[in-house]
């Protein structure tokens, strides 16, 4: 388990440029699932036949990460960038970046000797990315407008913690891959006909998953996420969204959606039955693909289960390995055990 997490987080893949992540995932699931589809938006849909084919379950995690796009090539050979998804400009001063996953670059940072106002936030309008080019002409030979720019971060795992970029939401992708492996290696079947959707374009407004759902037409869905923690010393505990180490995060409500009561209870009861540590998300800011699914087709009910992560949408996020393992156990239980859904089905 967790053997894909390092590779997944280190791959570059901003919204609409998920191809490297998609290829990697596809190469890992080939031969393990009944069918693989890549749709018009680039969603990778992996179908596994279930014990009960009267229902279709969709399990969803998004492949895209927040990052940047080259939006200008300056006369001096530096590059202007704009965020793809929500990246606070304060986390990128003097940061190391990769252009198209290959070219080394840095975010220029005026020396403190020349810019003494250390409270001032350097905004995207003034940020210049430097790859070593001295003119626009020279830069244009290797860099194009629209090129993908990502954080240059390598994965570290030590003790009970892992550190990397893009846990939002490669951690969800990783758990789906682990569950596909579990089902395949143990020659099992999921509870229902199950569609694992590796979604595109979540970070730019939940644009991928609805298209995938329109193809799948699921009865219900589980959305897996890497979610905010906020449990740091500058944030008083009453403002925390979650606390890493306290287990999988179960969402009752977030931006644009109150989770359907029976769905929420099904997830909570499964966690209780497994006797694992779990927590509720204490803040409702931020949304997930569940909000999109609720407004897709006939309205697809979805639950949200997340791994809590500190410092998401920055080059360095931290998660707790026990949280990962317990989230995996909880999702695995819901995907494979029909009994967990008896009450949910009775309500319909």
């Amino acid at each position: 388990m967790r053997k894909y997490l390092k590779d997944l987080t280190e791959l570059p893949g901003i919204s609409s440029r998920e191809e490297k992540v998609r290829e990697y995932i596809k190469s890992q699931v080939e031969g393990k699932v009944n069918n693989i589809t890549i749709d018009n938006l680039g969603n990778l849909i992996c179908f596994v036949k279930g014990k009960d084919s009267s229902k279709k379950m969709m399990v969803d995690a998004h492949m895209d990460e927040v990052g940047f796009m080259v939006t200008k090539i300056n006369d001096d050979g530096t590059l202007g960038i704009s965020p793809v998804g929500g990246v606070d400009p304060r986390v990128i001063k003097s940061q190391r970046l990769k252009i198209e996953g290959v070219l080394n670059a840095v975010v220029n940072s005026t020396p403190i000797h020349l810019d003494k106002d250390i409270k001032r936030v350097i905004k995207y309008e003034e940020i210049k990315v430097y790859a070593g080019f001295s003119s626009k002409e020279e830069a244009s030979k290797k860099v194009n407008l629209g090129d993908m720019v990502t954080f240059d971060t390598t994965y570290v795992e030590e003790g009970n913690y892992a550190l990397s970029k893009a846990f939002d939401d490669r951690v969800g992708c990783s758990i789906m891959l682990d569950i596909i492996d579990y089902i395949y290696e143990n020659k099992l079947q999921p509870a229902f006909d199950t569609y694992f959707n590796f979604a595109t374009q979540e970070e730019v407004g939940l644009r991928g998953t609805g298209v995938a759902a329109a193809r799948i037409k699921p009865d219900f869905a589980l959305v897996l996420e890497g979610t905010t923690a906020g449990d740091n010393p500058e944030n008083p505990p009453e403002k925390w969204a979650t606390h890493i180490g306290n287990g999988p995060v179960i969402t009752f409500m977030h931006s644009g959606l109150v989770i359907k009561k029976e769905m929420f209870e099904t997830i909570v009861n499964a966690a209780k039955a497994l006797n694992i540590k779990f927590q509720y998300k204490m803040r409702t800011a931020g949304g997930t693909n569940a909000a999109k699914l609720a407004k897709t087709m006939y309205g697809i009910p979805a639950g949200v289960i997340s791994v809590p992560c500190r410092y998401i949408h920055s080059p360095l996020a931290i998660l707790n390995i026990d949280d990962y393992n317990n989230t995996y156990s909880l999702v695995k239980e819901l995907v494979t055990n029909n009994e967990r859904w008896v009450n949910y089905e009775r309500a319909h």
Partner: protein
Amino acid sequence: MDTKDLIKNLSDSFGVTSFENCTFPLIEQFLLEINQDIKLEKIGIGNLVATYGQGNPKIAFFAHVDEIGIVISNIIDDTFARIEAVGGVDPRTLVGKRVCFRTENGEKLGVIGFLAPHLQKPEDKDKSPSFDELFVDFSVSGGTKDINVGDIGVINVEAKDLENDQIVGKAIDNRAGVAVLIKSFEYLQNLKFDGQLMLSFNKGEEVGLVGAKGAAEYLQPDYAVVVDVTFGERLPENVESFKIGEGPVITIGAPINRCVYDDLVKTAKDNNIKYQIEAVPSRSGTETDIVQIVGQGIKTGLVSVPILNMHSPSEVVNINDIDRAAKLLAMFALNMSLKTKGSLNV
């Protein structure tokens, strides 16, 4: 000696002010690779001095070895700690970075975390955190149980190649200067230098020119040339700006002896070494400010390597500037020795 490998190795080495001893062995190794016939000693407060040749003139090149860093100022709980700056650190350059601390229990990796935008208050978005607000998260190294107040750290990044012979690293200030001294010694091997060359690798510049004074007192050279870095950014409109890749910067001004400046410029011209000129009205902000007024006064010059993003983990240098500066220094030493011998013959 490949200049890229040299500067990358030097920049990656841990050597925050007071921890220069971690970088000295690397410098000694590079010097001995060039010529075993060099005398290495630690003097005074702990500067590393390498002496080559004997007699007159006595020419000293100075470079500070220390880099800026951070220090643990307070342990908050079993996960988090607070930090302060060692030298001129812009707290904005620390946000979202990995940091590595030297502790008595080994190296400890931490993260300077930042709240995700989803949870931020709108009124906080317009200011960057100060040292009072920054914190280090030691989750990935077993928490703070092995961390003590006073433990010193750096931003944990490796030197990498950029396009066009440029290297980005955390401690180009002033390992670029260190590299220039080492490379100048290498160049000198092919020259008929007759005199004494002293390379002084100094401690403590970033907190106030601590090492250079003692070294100058001890060495009492006939000529001293300080090698440091300078800004490659656009400077205010009343001051000439420098470009990286356009050669070393030779300084003229109060903390520089005019004769040394003249000889450096003449050497550059005679040898077709591309250079730039910096006019310093009062102090240079480098070791020249103290070296020149040590004892009965020392004839002092300044050669700087222009870099980008000084005092950030993304300091950028063009290796051709290091090579040119090294060649300039070696030829300067040769010329001064020829000049001295010439005058002795009269």
